[in-house]
């Protein structure tokens, strides 16, 4: 993956990981609430067949301009602004999103259903079921994320923290700054209840959609996959074993195969 930076028409500066051949069909991948972690196996797998673009949301990593984005419409239009800045507008890229990125991708598809090829949603936020309340991740203590996000919490070791040494107070402060930016941004879409009424717009989402779910997702339980399938006009479900919420990091090869099988 190569990193580049683009500036959107709104003025956000966005770091983008890019991989795969110029001639291949473009796929725009939107990361989840934890951001783009230092493990690109899934994106690498996808880049074997597609031209993959993975922008980092403002508030995450080196991307800036999060103060320009306040509500769901802002984030959805930002997604299209990034596609525009990457020269993807008009080329009907496939759209894939994980977790919070799935929520944004679904909103983007509802806004411009004719603007995309196919859509892949991996353990997406966006719906709410009273019988399966999503845990309040904004009240998690740092060490609780691994338990809720991973099938195998040991897999989270070092991945969520970027290998920081928390005994160093400055490193700890930097972690809190990063966390405040990342989850502060996520909170604009997900706090206090991660439901921005996407369900009433999903009738517009006429692109063929694959809903992928980690079978042991403890954050958004797999029952949500069925609700997505009910609401989406053209969808199918793929379930991934031995994966929690973090499917792209726990089963990257299988996910890449499944996605490629669907995108064709």
């Amino acid at each position: 993956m190569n990193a580049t930076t683009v500036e959107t028409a709104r003025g956000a500066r966005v770091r983008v990981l890019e991989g795969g051949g110029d001639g291949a069909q473009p796929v725009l991948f939107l990361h989840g609430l934890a951001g783009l972690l230092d493990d690109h196996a899934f994106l690498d797998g996808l880049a074997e067949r597609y031209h993959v673009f993975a922008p980092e949301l403002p508030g995450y990593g080196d991307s800036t301009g999060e103060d320009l984005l306040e509500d769901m419409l802002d984030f959805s239009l930002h997604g299209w602004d990034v596609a525009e800045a990457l020269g993807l507008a008009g080329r009907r890229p496939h759209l894939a999103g994980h977790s919070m990125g799935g929520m944004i991708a679904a909103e983007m598809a509802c806004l411009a259903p004719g603007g995309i090829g196919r859509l892949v949603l991996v353990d997406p936020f966006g719906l709410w079921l009273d019988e399966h309340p999503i845990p309040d991740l904004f009240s998690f203590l740092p060490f609780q994320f691994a338990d809720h996000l991973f099938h195998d919490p040991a897999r989270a070791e070092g991945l969520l923290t970027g290998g920081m040494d928390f005994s160093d107070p400055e490193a700890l402060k930097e972690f809190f700054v990063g966390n405040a930016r990342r989850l502060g941004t996520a909170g604009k879409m997900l706090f206090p209840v991660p439901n921005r009424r996407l369900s009433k717009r999903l009738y517009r989402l006429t692109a063929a959609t694959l809903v992928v779910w980690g079978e042991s997702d403890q954050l958004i339980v797999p029952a949500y996959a069925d609700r997505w399938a009910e609401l989406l006009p053209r969808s199918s479900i793929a379930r991934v074993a031995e994966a929690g919420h973090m499917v792209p990091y726990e089963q990257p090869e299988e996910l890449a195969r499944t996605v490629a099988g669907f995108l064709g």
Partner: protein
Amino acid sequence: MKFTWFNLMPWPYLPDDFREKHRSVWVDIPNTLYDPVRGHAVYHEYMDQLEFAESLGFDGIGVNEHHQNGYGLMPSPNIIAAGLARRTSSAAICVIGNSIALYNPPIRVAEEFAMLDVISGGRLVAGFPVGTPMDTNFCYGQIPALTRDKYREAHDLIVRAWASDEPFAFDGKYNQLRWVNLWPKPIQKPHPPVYIPGGGSVETWDFCIEHDYNYSYLSFGGYLAGKALLDGYWDRVAALGKDDSPYRAAFAQIIAVADTDAEAEKLYAEHILYFYNRCLRVYPGFADPPGYRTVRTIREGTLTLLRRENQALFQSVTWKDLVERGMVIAGSPQTVRQRMEELIKSLRVGHVFCLLHNGNQPDEKTRHSTRLFAEQVMPHLRDMWPEWSSDERWWIHPLESRVTPRPPAEPAEARA
């Protein structure tokens, strides 16, 4: 010096094993621990104490707002303040305050504060806290990263509504009102003194200083731990070119007075330990949602909750710790007076919010401590800032001639 008698209104019946059984006194505390029948007596006892404090010469009586909280039984402090406005006649009624980002629309606060100011004859001190994450975000659902922006807008709307003599349209990001036209308006012009309670956000300091509002540092960490923070505040006051009147700042302090130091421990230790060890048990996950604190504040390092010296707040503490660290000022009138002088001088504050009721402290002890403070401590502290003795910019300006509420019926009328 101005002294305000403050009651947080804690629930005094948290069980002995509260700490072991429950993770938080706030947000998700089981509401089965609350008993409204006992609550009836608790409210009246606390309101009686506030009125008693006025009669002993305290300059102000203070209340505040918390939600889903076992140590703060005032989701609406304005209701308590309304009761106090009728049964008191001279003390400032300090509502510290209303979390203005939570009111939809915040014009409601402009109205209720105006009502309180009018009923009390111009005795209202109006507090505008940004609000704790527990109240603002977890109980009332405000988005952490947008809370400050919403707060600023609410502030601008309220202050403009108080000042304007004509209806105006307000096209805000969070509030759109075609007709803002306040009825009633406050007595105090252009508005009651504004106090901003804060916990150490850099932005809050600048906001207070720019608007000439009082900055009230409310913590239970005591004056020794508070010094670094107040020093930071005074540095900002100087940097922004304002005078250093001590009345720009207020500090809340837990106080307990008895005839001797030993007697103070005997009388009050268990109740103050109840406060620290049961009431201050807050689940850390509710204390700092990402986005609530700005990146600038985190970088400035004023993370009070993360400071080593404040970790004691989350652990079991002893009386000795509390007194030595200055979290509690307790002892004989002599001891309390000496430590209060230290507090006032070292923090450079003109206002002290005196927390003289603490935890599950019974009424008689509270009155005893309050009386000793009023009679044997307060008079000696009055003139700590002689060069600023005529500075009334941060205090109430009541009507000269105020109405005394008439009793419901004269005894003879009642019989007839």
